[in-house]
């Protein structure tokens, strides 16, 4: 031992390796080094080393600690040739290293850091107290940012480490934070998240524009200070005034257009009346004619005054509008906690009342001048004009067709961070009805004027409008947090078609009790394909409680003009399932079990081979049909009737194991599991029509002629042809199958089910399939490939996606 010590040189690499663990000293001790200024050089930090340095500053001050060079990874670069990376060593870090001078222990080198646990339970975020106690890495120059979410830690702590904000609104982030059991904070990555954007267009969407503004303002105010609130009100009032200006202009134009024939008739009546009166008095037609003409001429001045007012009308009204809009908004934002469409109607109703009141005020004096030729009710006429404004632009469209026309496949609204949004248009009747009722309430209360002028008495003016149980003489438009979550709905809109509908399938249930359970969207059941779609419609996941987030779904339509489902929605698949959606009790009390029903080939990819394997998380293997270029035409899941597949509880995910293929995107669609029948299957005679129903095509009953293929499949037409379509036994099967038979001549080797068979053994079928890949396209992605395919299939169940072809 003594000899060994004597032989030591304390020279790097010649003696033993003396490693150590220590703690990086606090900021004060790092001097100018930490600032990277002055006499700072290299990459070094002061460290207090366990076992070498006392845990006491009085014995060894931080300032007297040795500098430790920090070794860099070769992947970081040294700085030479501009290859470099900054150090990320912070005060308080626990580091490991060795001494360059061996037992002399004066030249420490840091080799690496120990990761700090992100779990708050492990602490370590406190200010420095004394040596070897954990403390924060933040310094006087590096301060925590709310945006990055305060919390230090790294390594393998997953959700605890370096938490980032979410792409949700501040309000949603707060809701998530409140619901967390682990107490972790949540932040929004942008104040713009979930803001509603209206792309604009013609007057048709004035109501949408206004509703979007109000909804945004209500959301923004929810997290605003009183000072911010003024800014929000001011900005929104300006925008709303701008939008309302077009309404004012339309009002004025319509009013004068309506007045013209009425005044003209009044002039004719005036002439007739004057003529008759004078003729009676004078019995002289010439004098009577002159008197009549004079009476009409006397109206030129008053009518001209009216006409001269036209250019100023919109300007005058708009100038007055801003103040009232600000008042209306202030009142609304004071009381409304949650935007609902009925409050949007009321807001627009108030706006209408204000514009009408303004026009009446502006025109009132001038109308007195023409009272001899207009006896009507100007306000009544304005209100009927209002109906025209919202009823809506059809009146204008007849005169001047909108260039861009109906929205068709478009959307006018977008939620930032989320996607397209459908806004259910308010009806003119609803708005005018509430506007009139509010006006009547005010008149009944004999309180015209006041701070809100002649707007009427609306619910949003009431402080208790957001209190549960709110009800007023006007309506029951409660604007507090939603009390009854009605579950989520699938809203299919746009695409220039209509009629498609679908139902959500929820899974991944979280929570023990029904009342508190939340779920993710794991499937969508198409209930109606609708029609006339020229592009895939948008799919909106609607949660009336605004509780869930993250679910995204897309629709697939049939582009094949020869297909019976042409321009219909043939599938709606889930892209991401989201979370936190409210769970509602099934209407029939059933608790369905789901299995994969069929697979949507979103993208066919290419270069796949028949040796490739498609599986799901449960290990089930799927059959795949390819074209000559290795593109996936169809994927058939195991038949749950004859295969004991596992229940699907989460959004299923398919994996393709292939060494050559790439690019395919497959989405598994689930449906309620059919009864498992094992190896022996009872076959119902489904050849004989039931009540005249031969079977189903795309969910609809089929009554026409049909023929049975050698493999037992029914097809339309009395004889086989290229345009035949498969007839399925159940609406479900017919809906979930997406392919259509064309050129077929199927060579089938199969144990067929004859029409008279009541029970038989189901056997595998090998058949030559010629598949015409139905032209389908999803939003943002296109499906390609039309090719014949020869492959084998097992079973002919419609629930297998069907169309492996004939």
């Amino acid at each position, binding site marked *: 031992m003594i000899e060994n010590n004597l032989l030591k040189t304390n020279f790097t690499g010649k003696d033993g390796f003396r490693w150590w663990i220590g703690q990086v000293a606090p900021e004060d001790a790092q001097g100018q080094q930490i600032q990277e200024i002055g006499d700072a050089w290299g990459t070094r930090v002061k460290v207090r080393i366990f076992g070498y340095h006392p845990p006491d500053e009085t014995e060894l001050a931080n300032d007297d600690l040795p500098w430790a060079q920090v070794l860099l990874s070769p992947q970081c670069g040294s700085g030479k040739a501009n290859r470099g990376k900054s150090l990320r060593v912070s005060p308080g870090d626990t580091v490991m290293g060795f001494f360059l001078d061996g037992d002399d222990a004066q030249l420490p080198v840091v080799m690496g850091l120990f990761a700090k646990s992100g779990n708050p339970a492990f602490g370590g975020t406190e200010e420095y107290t004394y040596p070897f106690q954990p403390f924060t890495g933040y310094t006087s120059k590096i301060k925590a940012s709310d945006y990055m979410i305060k919390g230090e830690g790294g390594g393998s702590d997953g959700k605890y480490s370096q938490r980032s904000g979410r*792409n949700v609104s501040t309000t*949603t982030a707060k809701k998530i934070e409140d619901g967390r059991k682990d107490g972790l904070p949540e932040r929004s990555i942008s104040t713009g998240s979930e803001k509603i954007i209206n792309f604009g267009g013609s007057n048709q969407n004035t109501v949408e524009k206004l509703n979007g503004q109000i909804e945004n303002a209500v959301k923004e105010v929810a997290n605003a200070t009183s000072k911010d609130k003024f800014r929000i009100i001011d900005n929104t009032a300006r925008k709303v005034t701008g939008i*309302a200006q077009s309404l004012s202009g339309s009002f004025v134009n319509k009013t004068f257009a309506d007045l013209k024939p009425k005044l003209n008739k009044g002039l004719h009546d005036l002439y007739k009346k004057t003529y008759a009166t004078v003729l009676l008095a004078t019995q002289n037609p010439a004098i009577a004619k002159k008197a009549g003409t004079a009476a009409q001429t006397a109206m030129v001045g008053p009518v001209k005054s009216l006409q001269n007012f036209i250019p100023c009308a919109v300007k005058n009204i708009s100038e007055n509008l801003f103040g009232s809009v600000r008042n209306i908004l202030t009142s609304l934002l004071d009381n409304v906690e949650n935007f609902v469409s009925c409050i949007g109607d009321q807001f627009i109703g108030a706006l209408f009342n204000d514009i009408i009141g303004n026009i009446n005020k502006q025109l009132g004096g001038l109308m007195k001048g023409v009272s001899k030729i207009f006896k009507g009710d100007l306000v009544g006429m304005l209100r009927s004009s209002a109906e025209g404004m919202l009823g809506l632009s059809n009146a204008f469209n007849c005169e*001047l067709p909108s260039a861009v*026309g109906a929205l068709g496949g478009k959307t006018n609204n977008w939620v930032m961070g989320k996607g397209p949004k459908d806004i259910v248009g308010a009806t003119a009747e609803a708005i005018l009805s509430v506007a009139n009722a509010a006006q009547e309430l005010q008149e009944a209360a004999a309180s015209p004027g006041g701070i809100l002028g002649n707007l009427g008495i609306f619910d949003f003016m009431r402080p208790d409008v957001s209190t549960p149980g709110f009800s007023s003489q006007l309506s029951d438009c409660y604007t507090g947090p939603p009390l009854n979550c009605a579950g989520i709905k699938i809203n299919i809109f746009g695409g220039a078609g209509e009629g498609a509908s679908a139902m959500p399938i929820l899974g991944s249930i979280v929570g023990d009790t029904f009342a508190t359970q939340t779920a993710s969207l794991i499937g969508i059941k198409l209930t109606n394909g609708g029609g006339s779609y020229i592009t895939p419609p948008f799919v909106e996941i609607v949660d009336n409680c605004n509780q869930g987030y993250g679910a995204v779904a897309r629709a697939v339509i049939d582009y094949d003009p020869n297909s019976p489902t042409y321009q219909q929605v043939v599938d709606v698949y889930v892209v991401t399932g989201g*979370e936190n959606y409210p769970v509602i009790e099934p209407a029939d009390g059933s608790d369905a079990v789901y299995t994969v029903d069929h697979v949507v080939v979103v993208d066919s990819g290419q270069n796949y081979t028949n040796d490739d394997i498609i599986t799901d998380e449960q290990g089930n293997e799927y059959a795949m049909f390819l074209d000559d270029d290795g593109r996936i035409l169809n994927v058939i899941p195991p038949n749950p009737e004859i295969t004991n597949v596992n229940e699907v509880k989460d959004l299923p995910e398919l994996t393709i194991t292939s060494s050559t293929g790439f690019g395919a995107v497959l989405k598994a669609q689930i449906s309620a599991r059919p009864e498992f029948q094992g190896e022996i299957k009872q076959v119902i005679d489904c050849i004989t029509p039931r009540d005249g129903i031969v079977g189903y095509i795309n969910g609809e009953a089929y009554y026409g002629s049909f023929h049975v293929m050698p493999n037992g499949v029914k097809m339309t037409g009395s004889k086989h042809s290229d345009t035949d379509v498969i007839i399925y036994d159940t609406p479900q099967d017919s809906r979930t199958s997406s392919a259509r038979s064309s050129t077929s001549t199927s060579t089938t080797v199969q144990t067929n089910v004859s029409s008279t068979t009541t029970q038989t053994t189901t056997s595998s079928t090998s058949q030559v399939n010629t598949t015409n890949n139905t032209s389908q396209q999803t939003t943002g992605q296109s499906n390609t490939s039309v090719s014949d395919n020869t492959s084998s299939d097992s079973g002919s169940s419609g629930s297998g996606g069907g169309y492996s072809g004939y």
Partner: protein
Amino acid sequence: MAERPDEQQNWQLRQYDSFGPHFRIDSGNPQLGQNGAVVYDLLGSGKDGNTSTVGMTEAGLYHMYNDQCIEIMGGNKVDGGGVCVNIVGANGDVTITAMSSGDVKITGQNIILDADKNVEINAGGDFRVVANNTVNMTSTNMYLTAPYGKIRVREVSWMGGVFAGTKVSESVWSA
């Protein structure tokens, strides 16, 4: 409200590179936003609380959010005539919206609106067209509708002005 259970969140996929409280690259973060989980985000934050996020979601939405102004400039070294900023929507609409009371301004030597089908311009207030040279509108059908104003449709001739009030009749100078 409650998140999905931890076992349903793929934290294994997450990789981040955090440079400090001011900048981070976050990828594969399973926490859900409105458009699904994070594929990646570049998150930045200034000391005044201004933030910026660029990223992509699992459902494919690419986003660029910035609390203050966004500048996009291209072509500083492009000699005249080339394209220096090109915004393309492969499928679907391309929209520009100024929220609040902002204006949308397009400035250039020539401004060309080229619509395969229709052009629609809606103005809540006034619509003005001022050209210091020629206004040329050609159509098979044209409508002008207003309850009041001055709509003059007539042939305009500079020669008419020259010969105005002279004894030379219009039929002569316009022949």
